């Protein structure tokens, strides 16, 4: 918390004046800061980015409500983090790889996954993890920080195979910086100088543990120095800043100049407005007014204000966007709620070819189901 508050004192100064001062393009009201460069995006691209953030916000509200109604299982909310998720994926090229956590719903969507694919696992249907051939997204990572060494390895492998036009972008939270895999992944990335961008979504809390109990470092970005990487601190609630910084980091990863190092650690300073998941109650460990303070810097509001001031968005267009995102979510939900999965799916994709012992186990289950019916399979849960 404190690092962000300190940085607030420099809100009207040059964006990169201090090392630990988060880079910004927009102030809290959506005005372009003095000396800040608005990234080179067309009006259409800016509007599309805004619509995707609006979609993510609405998806999040709907998902929490669906969980409360028992229509989906445990869900990890992202409100407050949609701007960083959408903007970082806008910075990716199609051939770049995305390594998401369980909270990067919007990042995955923008990089090519469907809303249906996000909803299916929440309905307990593994088929939603299926990834289209032309989409470079890894399945969500639920264990913490495990994806960092893998992202490094993917970037390294591409480099070894001469694929210099693609890079890897890897998300994780502030809690992940405590895990060994964070340090091993970044250390390897530095040693082998791979085209990877590591985005720490510093949302201030790892369930109930605040950032200052995760690390005694003043910032997370400064940890990059230990591994010989560039570290950048960005206002994660400023989508334009997140886009610009990620775009630059990806460009450098693919094509460094001089003695630049390819990998970058981006610290996106932001906040998880809501609970860690729908199974968590943040009122046990933090004050509600803390979240209210961060809501004043909201990414959706800031971008809306900026686009309105620029004449790119008006109320009528905004209302159309609202209707459109609602309809998209309704359609996806209807599709997914109509899906029935089959117990045979349990045995699929464990190996490329199903071993005999698994075939036998599958046949035994199906025979038992034929004999006793589906009702006999709910006793353990009763």
């Amino acid at each position, binding site marked *: 918390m404190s690092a962000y508050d300190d940085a607030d004192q420099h809100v009207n100064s040059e964006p990169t004046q201090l090392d630990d001062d988060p880079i910004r393009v927009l102030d809290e009201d959506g005005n372009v800061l003095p000396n800040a460069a608005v990234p080179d995006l067309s009006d259409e691209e800016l509007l599309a980015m805004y619509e995707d953030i609006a979609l993510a916000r609405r998806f999040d509200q709907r998902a929490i409500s669906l969980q409360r109604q028992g229509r989906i*299982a*445990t869900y990890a909310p992202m409100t407050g983090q949609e701007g960083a998720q959408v903007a970082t994926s806008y910075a990716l090229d199609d051939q770049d790889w995305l390594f998401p956590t*369980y909270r990067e719903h919007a990042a995955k969507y923008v990089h090519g996954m469907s809303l249906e694919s996000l909803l299916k*696992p929440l*309905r*307990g*249907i*593994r088929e939603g993890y299926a990834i289209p051939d032309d989409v470079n997204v890894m399945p969500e990572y*639920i*264990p*913490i920080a495990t994806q960092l060494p893998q992202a490094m390895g993917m970037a390294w492998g591409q480099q070894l195979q001469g694929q210099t036009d693609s890079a890897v972008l890897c998300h994780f939270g502030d*809690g*992940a910086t*405590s*895990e*060994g*895999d964070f340090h091993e992944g970044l250390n390897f990335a530095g040693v082998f100088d791979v085209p990877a961008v590591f985005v720490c979504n510093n949302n201030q809390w*790892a*369930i*109930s*543990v605040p950032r200052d*109990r*995760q*690390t005694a470092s003043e910032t997370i970005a400064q940890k990059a120095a230990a591994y010989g990487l560039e570290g950048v601190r960005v206002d994660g609630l400023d989508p334009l800043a997140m886009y610009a910084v990620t775009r630059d980091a990806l460009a450098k990863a693919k094509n460094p100049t001089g003695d630049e190092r390819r990998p970058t650690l981006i610290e996106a300073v932001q906040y998880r407005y809501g609970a860690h998941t729908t*199974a*968590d109650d943040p009122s*046990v*460990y933090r004050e509600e007014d803390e979240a209210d303070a961060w809501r004043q810097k909201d990414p959706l509001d800031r971008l809306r204000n900026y686009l309105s001031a620029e004449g790119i968005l008006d109320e009528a267009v905004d209302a159309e966007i609202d209707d459109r995102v609602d309809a998209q979510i309704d359609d996806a939900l209807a599709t997914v709620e109509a899906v029935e*999965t089959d*117990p045979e*799916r*349990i*045995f699929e994709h*464990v190996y490329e070819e199903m*071993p005999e*012992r*698994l075939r036998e*186990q*599958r046949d035994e*289950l199906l025979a*038992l*189901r034929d*004999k*006793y019916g589906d009702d*006999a*399979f*709910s*006793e*353990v*849960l009763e």
Partner: protein
Amino acid sequence: MSSATRATAESGTDSLTIVEAVRDGLYTEMSADESVMVLGEDVGKNGGVFRATEALYEEFGGDRVVDTPLAESGIVGTAIGLALSGMRPVAEMQFMGFSYPAFDQLVSHAARMRSRSHGQYSVPMVVRAPYGGGIRAPEHHSESKEAFFVHEPGLKVVSPSTPSDAKGLLIASIRDPDPVVFLEPKLLYRAFREDVPTGRYEVPLSDAAIRRTGTDVTVYTWGAMTRPSLIAADNVAEEHGIDVEVVDLRTLSPLDVETIVDSFTKTGRAAIVHEAPKTGGVGAEVATTIQEHALCYQEAPIERITGFDAPMPLHALEDYYLPQAVHIQEGILEAVAF
């Protein structure tokens, strides 16, 4: 029901769920012994993601109920050092499926500090972890991989299935001079209540419990599978007149060979039930133990009713993955029909 409890001074009981009994066990030991401390992710202010440590932070303070950074290897490695210093740490893994980063610390160090130092150092610590399926949790939250830990010499592995066992086994684990992996079946955390003795008592880490006596066939099980096993036993008694004995192993390492073998020499038939995958599961160890000690009493092949050799599916299909009473009935009938 075998009840090897040793109640002490205070008498009386409280009606508790398993998760409340775990908390009561921690509270009881922390009150009795200042060297007992709790550490892990979210165990302090939040009281643990399942509330197993609720109110302990307020009672004992942040030095004894410690919210750590998010790092399982760090938590277990630190606990080893704490234990070496004379503390009695109880480390929480939020879910068994997240314990793997700590696996190296557990198997390379906690398990063999005593043997490596030729008895000079010991690591009296407990690693608690909720495990098993059935609560509609996301991927990696429903793991049942007790075999990983049972395979490691130097570790003890415990899995209670009742509130009074949860408390008594946990206290015994904390008092134990060796490292104990304490696996809590989270499906049962709030499933039912039971009268649990107040105060300090231990359920020894050496005794299985006979939950139902019978003469025709023995069902060996533990953790959350104890309940469907008892349902299946009642069903086959009613429908087929088969008299089933149900043995709840409670401690998976070391196994209570005597109770396992005694029951089998009585019935001559066995069905082993666990929710972990079949291949390399603890059921294989139980079956071999029976054959080593009681081959001449064996009247039928030993049946195994287990989870499949496939990852636990997401929740839409998890009740097809978990052994149900009907699976267990079929296994019992097979063992008897031979």
